[in-house]
């Protein structure tokens, strides 16, 4: 029992509120935002350290014992994701003054961003299903604010679709919580899990679980529910795209992992085979989408889908290797997607277009940007020795261990096509002859936050020895829902 678990949620909430009042002076907003995000990062690192040394931290809010009050659970998985969120948000906050127009900054860009961080951290940390719904709404509302910021035609149009589809899935979510309440009479996740296990997920419970899966899968942009995602991710400014790409879909897949490792662990064959199919189709259709376009932002946005498919694959095979792989891949993907969204943001800023057909020869003017993108490409495609590789071999190995051969072949082919789709940007955008009358813009300040993210990605690959054992603990831990239930209910 420690109040620490609430810090990653409350700090950004406070920060967001405070910076909302400084909107007259944008320099102060920027400065304060940077300070706050660094404090947030520092605290998160500290809490992560505590969790990995002393075990899960539980906070029962208002001292109402579980399962009655709302609880926050900082366990291995959730705190790692909160930490990743903090890391990539730091990069985003630091790059924002360069990539976001001042007007948008004044119109509460930072407030929305902090609230988004708060909502995402809350969604990771909460141990209460209805509270999860509330945090979903917080992060969605913040994302609505961010996505419409600027109010251009395309933005409004795509935002509307985005908002409506998310609204629908939220309504279904809250209804599903009600259904679960009717059956097991509680909304605390550990308590739900305990009771569901008691009746071995009998009767209608599996169906409720599947509806819940669909709710989360809509947020996670899995096949066949991702239609809202690609275009709505590219209409706002690049920093917002990066935050969306890194966080929103990941909250969805996190919820799926949480619910399906903790609560719905029976009827496994049918469900897991279903997941394998969904994972495979997400990979295939996602990468097909990425190949279908010449818009660099859209290419990256479509690439969100196959990576979610990979994460789901680890859950589907449901062994230690697979789950460890899922976690590793999830963290890797959050960081590299942020980096890539920011990179294509910078690229389309310097090229003045996001259409590949109109680009070329950028490497002559922006060698650093080019090579950073080149490395990011390989990180994304899972080429060693970068972070994607470790995650990928674990996932594929996990699939082999459970005799799922076809999905491995799909996964390998998808990796190839991902590489192709992104390498196209490098070949067509960076290679080529020098252009005449090309205006070179200053971008150096934009690159440091991206370098910061890439260093993490490289470190998670080359320095995997420092990271992997911890994540292996997560995989082990996820296989054993009793650990979570006991830490919440039996203290």
């Amino acid at each position, binding site marked *: 029992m420690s109040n620490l678990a609430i810090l990653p949620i409350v700090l950004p909430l406070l920060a967001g509120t405070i910076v909302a009042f400084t909107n007259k002076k944008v320099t102060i907003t920027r400065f304060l935002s940077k300070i706050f995000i660094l404090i947030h990062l520092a605290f998160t690192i500290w809490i992560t350290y505590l969790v990995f040394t002393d075990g899960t931290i539980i906070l029962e809010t208002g001292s109402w014992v579980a399962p009655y009050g709302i609880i926050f659970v900082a366990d291995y998985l959730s705190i790692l994701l909160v930490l990743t969120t903090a890391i990539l948000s730091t990069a985003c906050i630091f790059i924002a003054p360069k990539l976001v127009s001042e007007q948008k900054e004044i119109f509460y860009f930072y407030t929305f961003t902090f609230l988004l961080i708060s909502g995402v951290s809350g969604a990771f940390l909460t141990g209460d299903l209805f509270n999860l719904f*509330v945090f979903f*709404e917080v992060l969605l509302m913040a994302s609505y604010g961010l996505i419409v910021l600027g109010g251009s035609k*395309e933005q409004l149009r795509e935002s509307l679709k985005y908002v*409506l589809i998310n609204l629908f899935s939220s309504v*279904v979510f*809250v209804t599903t919580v009600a259904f679960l309440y009717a059956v097991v009479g509680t*909304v605390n996740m550990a308590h739900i899990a305990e009771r569901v296990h008691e009746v071995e997920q009998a009767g209608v419970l599996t169906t409720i679980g599947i509806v819940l899966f669909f709710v989360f899968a809509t947020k996670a942009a899995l096949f066949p529910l991702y239609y809202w995602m690609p275009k709505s991710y590219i209409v706002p400014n690049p920093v917002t795209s990066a935050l969306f790409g890194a966080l929103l879909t990941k909250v969805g897949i996190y919820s799926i992992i949480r619910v399906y490792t903790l609560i719905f662990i029976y009827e496994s064959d049918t469900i897991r085979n279903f997941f394998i199919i969904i994972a495979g189709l997400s990979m295939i259709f996602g990468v097909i989408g990425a190949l279908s376009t010449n818009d660099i932002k859209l290419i990256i946005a479509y690439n969100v889908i196959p990576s979610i498919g990979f994460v789901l694959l680890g859950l589907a095979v449901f062994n230690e290797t697979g789950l460890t792989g899922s976690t590793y891949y999830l963290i890797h993907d959050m960081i590299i997607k942020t980096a890539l969204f920011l990179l294509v943001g910078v690229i389309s800023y310097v090229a003045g277009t996001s259409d590949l057909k109109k680009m070329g020869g950028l490497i002559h003017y922006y060698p650093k940007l080019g090579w950073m993108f080149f490395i990011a490409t390989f990180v994304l495609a899972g080429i060693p020795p970068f972070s994607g590789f470790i995650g990928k071999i674990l996932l594929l190995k996990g699939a082999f261990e459970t005799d799922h051969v076809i999905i491995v072949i799909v996964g390998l082919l998808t990796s190839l096509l991902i590489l192709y789709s992104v390498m196209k940007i490098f070949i067509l955008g960076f290679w080529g002859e020098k252009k005449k009358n090309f205006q070179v813009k200053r971008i150096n300040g934009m690159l440091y936050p991206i370098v910061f993210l890439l260093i993490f990605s490289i470190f998670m690959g080359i320095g995997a020895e420092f990271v992997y054992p911890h994540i292996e603990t997560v995989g082990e831990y996820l296989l054993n829902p009793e650990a979570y239930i006991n830490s919440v209910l039996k203290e």
Partner: protein
Amino acid sequence: MEFIIAILAGVLFATGVYNLLQKQLLRIAIGTGLISHAAHLFILTMGKLKRGQPPIIVDNVTNYTDPLPHALILTSIVISFGVTSVVLVLAYRTINENKTDNMEQLRGNEYE
């Protein structure tokens, strides 16, 4: 009675979804309203109906209706209200900017 409410909520969901599938923005907005109502009715019903007094503690009464769904619905109503207002203003601005209220004309295929 619970089953009847469940059916009613189902009807609300069905009509809500049907409205969501229309072209005109107003109908779509109405659809969102209907499905929120449906969700709230479901929450209420799932706590069972009419099992006691309103959940305000009065001496000598031990039997109250389930208060938790009420609390959840309250939270949910307020949140839906926030979302609905955003949807409405967003719709208003979209119609103004794009000069149409027909979703089929708001497909936007310039990225291909």
